[in-house]
């Protein structure tokens, strides 16, 4: 049990790092700072988007693999309990997370192609859309994972 709990916590921590990276990149891309400013929000928006690409790809893949690993344990422990407790919406929500995570993984090759250096002007709009899509997927997965994890309470 300690092993699976540790794995879940590491998975969650990696997800937080991924969430921060993709949010930074998406905000900097969609809401770039026009003039220098010392505010927290302006500094948040002023990050160089390109430098996040490989971090996001690696974090996504590692988080995905760890999540897929934890999933095996979830399937015959937590999920069975959730089904017995008739937490069917929670179970269904996790099914959505499963597919969203896969779609996010699928998008990564295109995401990499659109962010290849030197950045192509042809891909400017596609780059924005795919980055936003990936950010939405990561946020959705993070929130769903949080909800599912809280369904029975940690350690219960």
């Amino acid at each position, binding site marked *: 049990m300690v092993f699976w709990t540790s794995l879940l916590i590491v998975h969650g921590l990696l997800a937080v790092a991924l969430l921060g990276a993709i949010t930074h990149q998406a905000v900097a891309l969609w809401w770039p700072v026009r003039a220098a400013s010392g505010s927290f929000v302006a500094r948040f928006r002023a990050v160089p988007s390109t430098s996040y690409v490989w971090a996001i790809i690696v974090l996504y893949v590692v988080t995905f693999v760890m999540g*897929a690993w934890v*999933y*095996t*344990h979830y*399937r*015959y422990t937590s*999920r*069975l309990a959730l089904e017995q407790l008739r937490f069917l919406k929670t179970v269904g929500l996790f099914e959505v997370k*499963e*597919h969203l995570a*896969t*779609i996010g993984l*699928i*998008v*990564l*090759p*295109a995401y*990499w*192609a*659109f962010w*290849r250096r030197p950045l*192509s002007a*042809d*891909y400017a*709009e*596609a780059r924005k859309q795919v980055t936003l899509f990936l950010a939405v997927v990561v946020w959705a997965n993070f929130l769903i994972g949080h909800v599912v994890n809280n369904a029975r309470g940690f350690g219960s």
Partner: protein
Amino acid sequence: MIATNRAAMFAITFTVGYAVIYAICTEFNLPLLTYHPVTGEVDFLSKPPRSGPAMYWYGWLLTALIGATILTLVSTVTPERWMQRGITFGVLAAVGYLIVYSVALFIYDKATIELEFLKSRWLSAITAIVVAAAVALFYAQLLERARLARLGLGRPHWGNGGPGLLSDAVFHAVKCASVRVPSTVMPERRME
């Protein structure tokens, strides 16, 4: 948007192909393997649960991975015109399946007699594929005729025994639309 290099084309095609094949795998349950988490056993292809639940998700991922890799490799050696036809066919088949299967389930739900065959996904899929192939072929012929007509090589109307008024109307609509003539065929026009 135009893919500007081979690596980008490969990556984008792989992404699209994987998404499509993954959707098909989940809809028709086509896993390459089945994992039984309680016993830790792995079976080839789809197998029913035993000693606890069965997991198909990993199998779907693998099926889609192999399918997308093959699709991407094939697309790199396929002429663009055939790729366009393939995409048209794929989109039509997907939309067709959605419509056909929804209608089939609606009829099944409302029917006063038991029509079990309407619940078959495969039947809806085959119907959608046949219809999509016919429409894609029809559309391809229209585009080809429009292209030839623009080059002055084709007849503006169908001859005896050709399709009816509807196809002529669609043909003229396609012809009147701004169909771009590929630069590779322009020299033929100059020779006339």
